[in-house]
């Protein structure tokens, strides 16, 4: 279990000082796949480097399994890192790279050899163990970096955007691979990414970060379906924000229509903004029934598995609907400029803390 308390990191001094992390509190459970998600510059990599020990925190403490490790150098923390560009030793072979950590821990030769073989098997690199790291592909380098960091069997594995250099297909494969490795080894994974889809696919829990702060921690489902604030909703998935009025457990949209909601703590009655995911909105031709809104179609964008429909509501607010494409083709939708009825699915409205 990693406990991070009031972690603050300031780079530089005086006018050029930059607060990369401010008062971050977070607890990561043992054996958890924990993801730090946020845009670049949000402090997620800084937090990772603090856990690894590459940077000392300006304030706050980090403890691992109840022991304060804030003052330990990286070489004395039972934590290994998979670096963003792998940082494989170019003057060593694949096997030598994987053996490095074990050699530093002064393990017996026979144990090193068997662990390296086991790691090579785990990441399916047995054939290439004598290659130089410059002679293998990006995906293979990624596997070697993973094997090198796993070989000493650390308590925590830190992964700094390890998949960002891979192409789409390989990235998808490695996502599943990483999840499998985490299950098999039982090691706590702390994974840094700016890719929300990656975070949702792999994580047990996600911490969404922005401007040096953690905004929300929760399961992928929590984060996607019940984001606590506008930034989280906007960063994770596609969002429509609408103005509304909250009274008790009901909101009235500015454009009309009343919906039952459960408001998060700390949101008082009155003007609020609400989130509706585009896939929870459907449109059909014709007039409007109860709890249906009318809108004008502005643009229709076809994107393979689904079609995105950009709509303008009666009060001028813009929203998007995303509908799965049916095998029989798009029938019955008016062309751009046409009037349609907009149906919002029940329970699809989330009230946001602004």
């Amino acid at each position: 279990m990693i406990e991070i308390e009031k972690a603050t990191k300031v780079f530089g001094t005086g006018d050029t000082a930059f607060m990369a992390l401010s008062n971050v509190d977070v607890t990561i459970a043992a054996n958890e796949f924990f993801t730090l998600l946020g845009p670049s510059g949000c402090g997620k990599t800084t937090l990772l480097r603090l856990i690894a020990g590459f940077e000392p925190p300006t304030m706050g403490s980090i403890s691992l399994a109840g022991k304060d490790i804030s003052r330990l150098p990286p070489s004395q923390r039972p934590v290994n890192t998979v670096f963003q560009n792998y940082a494989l030793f170019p003057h060593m072979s694949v096997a030598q790279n994987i053996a490095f950590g074990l050699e530093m821990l002064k393990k017996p030769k026979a144990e090193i050899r068997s662990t390296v073989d086991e790691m090579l098997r785990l990441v399916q690199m047995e054939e290439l163990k004598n290659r130089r790291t410059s002679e293998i592909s990006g995906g293979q380098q990624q596997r070697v970096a993973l094997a090198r960091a796993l070989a000493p069997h650390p308590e925590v594995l830190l992964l700094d955007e390890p998949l960002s250099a891979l192409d789409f297909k390989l990235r998808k494969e490695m996502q599943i691979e990483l999840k499998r490795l985490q299950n098999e080894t039982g090691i706590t994974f702390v994974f840094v990414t700016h890719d929300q889809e990656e975070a949702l696919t792999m994580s047990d829990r996600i911490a969404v970060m922005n401007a040096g702060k953690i905004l929300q921690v929760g399961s992928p489902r929590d984060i996607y379906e019940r984001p606590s604030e506008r930034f989280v909703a906007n960063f994770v998935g596609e969002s429509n924000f609408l103005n509304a009025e909250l009274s008790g457990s009901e909101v009235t949209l500015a454009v009309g229509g009343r919906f039952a909601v459960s408001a998060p703590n700390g949101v008082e009655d009155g003007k609020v903004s609400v989130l509706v995911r585009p896939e929870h909105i459907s449109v059909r031709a014709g007039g409007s029934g109860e709890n249906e809104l009318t809108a004008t179609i502005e643009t229709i964008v076809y994107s393979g598995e689904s079609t995105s429909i950009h709509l303008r509501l009666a009060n001028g607010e813009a929203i998007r609907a995303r509908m799965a494409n049916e095998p029989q083709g798009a029938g019955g939708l008016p062309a751009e400029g046409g009037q349609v009825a907009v149906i919002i699915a029940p329970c699809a409205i989330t009230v946001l803390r602004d």
Partner: protein
Amino acid sequence: MVEYQTYAPGELEAEARASDYKSRWLLSLPAILIIIFAAAGPLMVMVVYSFLAPGDYGNVKWEFSLEGWMNTVIQRDIFDDTLVWADAHLSIFWRSLSLSLLTTVATLVFGLPTAWYIATQPSGKRELLLYLVTVPFWANLLVRTIAIQELIRTEGVINLVLLKVGFINEPIQMMFTNFAIGFGMTYVYLPLMVLPIYAAVDKLDFRLVEAAHDLYASRWTAFRRVILPLIKPGIIAGSILVFIPSLGAYVTPRVLGGGKNLMFGNLIELQFGQGRNWPLGAALSLMLMAAVMVALIWYVRVTSREQADG
């Protein structure tokens, strides 16, 4: 109606290649001319001279002789005409070799930390420090050597300070010793060690050092196992750049070593001057060149193996 000309397969490519080849020759012509007249020509003169007999007042006599080459290591005893090892030459060769190696080691010991320090500074300060390293090149070598003399002579700065502090009772004789030559050459050639190592450290990916620490390497182990192998090309280049001119150094040993502590360069100069033995001088020059070539070939082989590996 447009007329299309038809070409045989590969015809256009061959034409392009031919014209490329021609212009490449034309462009390298100036360099080739300079190499022939300014390097290969004089070198041939030296080779020819080394196989001739010495003239009475310098210069050469045009008759074939192996005396020049023999005299590099063997000399005729003046009393009984027997052949003996030229001890004076051998001790000069040894002094040149050992002082050059010592200079290389000393510049490495001082140059590596310096280069490391410079390369790890923020960019503005780094340029300033690099500039400072190259400043000595702006002053004449002789002037700089005489400045060293001012430091180490019997009434020089170092001795005066040590006497004043009471560290020593009488001045240390440093001038005209092997130490003086080594000290002077270390000073003169230090930038030639610092710059290539700086370039290597500058290229070093410090994330690799972080990775080593992350994998439980101590500072010393990370240096030995990761940093050193990666900056080795810079260290080898710096060593070659220091070792080769040290071997042939002339001004520094002349000023700081005096008349007794000769090095290879001084011995050669002697043959063309007072010694009036041009064939011996030519043979010695070619020997020095051969030694340098051996060092360079070793360098090329080590680095090319390195590249084939990495």
